[in-house]
């Protein structure tokens, strides 16, 4: 009896096609100084009910990728190639009207700075109700009720009153909650969160992260979570994609990336951040140098000018040959170091700095 009901359950979708599938995505901007290769040959999938963390520093292309998924780039100076398939629909090259129907409806976005990301000229309630009216055809009154309900769900006290407030009358944490309510108002199946807690205080950040996680459990939304903070990744992500200079340098589950990272850049990210349980006397191990210019990215491996483990590979292979990312059940690193050496270097040189047993 119970076996019969099983195929109807939505969880069956986990085995099928991913909800969002990005293949060989490249994004280039034409600027006065030349062409910026912001994203270069990026591929990833996101499944329903799971959270993919995209980690990288400023200029790594993590935000650009997601603006491309939503189709929010400026078409005048941006060239996008590759495939973005959302729930079976191809989005690259899709007309604006198609994208407008999907944005805010099937896929929604939460931005970093809620003060500038919400319009100062309209009430919070109106800004939440707007996409609901557009995508569901609801009446003004129904949309307003929906906005109140959403505000209540994300924990705004007295939502019936606060719905008529303007964003500047909200505190920072409340505004970010309103931003979440706005993104979730049409029950999107894909939520892209671009550094949603970076501007918040740490106690508020903890509330918001837990809230997002709980809401995801209720709705089964797929989440792409963009951040530079590996601590936040540990809290909220299932899978992680590490980006450097517009490329994916490592992929894996959150446990893979945080406990047994393979790429020297991922090692650098982990060992340059102090940890509360690490020994205090050892200095941090920063990544030398600065991130590369995307106008003229380094040849071969983009990380090679900053990589301290080049000599393990030998010759000029890191300068000459671009390492490919080959995935073995969702796990892989784009690095010329042999797998065994990756393991031993991490175990001997990096892990002791992290203060883990």
């Amino acid at each position, binding site marked *: 009896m119970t076996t019969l009901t099983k195929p109807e359950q939505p969880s069956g979708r986990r085995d099928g096609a991913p909800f969002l599938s990005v293949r060989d995505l490249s994004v280039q901007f034409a600027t006065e100084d030349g062409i910026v290769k912001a994203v270069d040959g990026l591929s990833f999938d996101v499944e329903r009910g799971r959270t993919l963390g995209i980690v990288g520093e400023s200029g790594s292309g993590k935000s650009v990728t997601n603006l491309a998924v*939503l189709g*929010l780039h400026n078409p*005048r100076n941006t060239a996008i190639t590759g495939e973005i398939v959302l729930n079976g629909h191809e989005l690259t090259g899709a007309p*604006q009207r198609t*994208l*407008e*129907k*999907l*944005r*805010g*409806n099937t896929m*929604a*976005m939460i*931005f970093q*700075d809620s003060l*500038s*990301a*919400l*319009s*100062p*000229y309209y009430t919070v309630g109106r*800004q939440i109700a*707007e*996409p609901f009216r*557009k*995508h569901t055809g609801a009446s003004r009154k129904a949309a307003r009720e929906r906005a109140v309900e959403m505000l209540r769900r994300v924990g705004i006290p007295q939502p019936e009153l606060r719905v008529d407030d*303007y964003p*500047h*009358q909200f505190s920072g944490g409340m505004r970010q909650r309103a931003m979440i309510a*706005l993104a979730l108002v049409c029950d999107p199946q894909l939520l892209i969160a671009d550094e949603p807690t970076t501007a918040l205080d740490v106690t508020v950040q903890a509330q918001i992260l837990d809230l997002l996680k709980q809401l995801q459990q209720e709705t089964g939304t797929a989440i792409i979570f963009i951040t530079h903070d590996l601590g936040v990744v540990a809290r909220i992500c299932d899978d992680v994609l590490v980006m450097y200079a517009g490329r994916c340098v490592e992929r894996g589950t959150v446990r893979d990336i945080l406990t047994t990272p393979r790429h020297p850049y991922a090692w650098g990210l982990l060992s340059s951040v102090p940890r509360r349980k690490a020994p205090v006397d050892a200095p941090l191990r920063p990544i030398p140098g600065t991130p590369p210019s995307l106008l003229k990215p380094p040849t071969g491996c983009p990380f090679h000018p900053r990589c301290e483990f080049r000599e393990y590979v030998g010759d000029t292979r890191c300068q000459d040959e671009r390492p490919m990312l080959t995935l073995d059940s969702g796990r892989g690193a784009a690095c010329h170091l042999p797998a065994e050496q990756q393991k031993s270097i991490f175990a001997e040189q990096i892990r002791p700095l992290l203060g883990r047993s």
Partner: protein
Amino acid sequence: MLRFLVRRVLGAIVILLLISAVTYFLFFALPADPAALSCGKNCNPQTLALIRKNLGLDEPVPVQYWQYMIGIFLGRNMTIGHCSAPCFGYSFASQQPVWSTLMNRYPTTVTLAAMGALIFLVIGVGLGLISAARQGTAFDKIASAVSLTGQSVQIYFIGPLAIYLFADTLGWLSRGHDPDWTHDPVGSITGMILPAMVMSVIFWSNYSRQTRSLMVEQLSEDHVRTARAKGMTSRYVFMRYALRGAMGPIITIFGMDLSSVFGGAIITEYTFGLHGLGQLAVSAVTQTDLPLEMGVMLFGAAAIVIANIIVDACYAVIDPRIRLS
């Protein structure tokens, strides 16, 4: 909001009082003596003293100023006769009450300024909006060239040219005449179209350029991106989000431009031979006609101050951050 308005009105009164005092006392710092002027060549001290007394120039300046201010609010008895409130005195030159002269002349100036402003706002902001929506296209480039040309010409140059072309040769528009709102409202408008158009030309380019750059800036704002991320159409986002954000600064620029608008109206009056406040102001200064000068000055200042309060009130209506803080 009410508190804000009351505070602004009280502030405006203080400003007007200051302007009146400065104008009044500066007048007496001038080397010219109005009594001597009106006395003429064959003047003896007795006549001069009599004229002084008649013009009220025999009292100390602060007393004169005090009486002048009292007159505005309560009216006053003068040698020529009773002058009822608001009394701005009698013109030294024409012996006419200043107030009624102002009342005769102001419709021309105000109509010209208002119509001119309306035209340059519509054309300038309109051009700016279309240019912003079509950045980099041929329209954008032509529009900026046209409005730049507009800015570099002078009213007294294009005025006669426009009269020759549109009024005398083509006969499309009237050469321009003073409005008479009570008897001929339609003629009041048609008679002002050509002068108002000519006056507006010098303002187009500023407004189209400012609007364009404000819109370009607004279109790259985060909240505009959020609106697009919600799936709102580009037209909706352009009009409801970006334009809404650009409106405040445009209104502020307009508020700061108001005195230039009045200045432009005065030059235009001269060019088109209209009888507005501009002509009056020039003759008052050249004839050292203190009451007339004070009247025109205060009238102009009051107009600008009131218009600025309206502008500020509009800003508060547009931007809730100002209204609610």
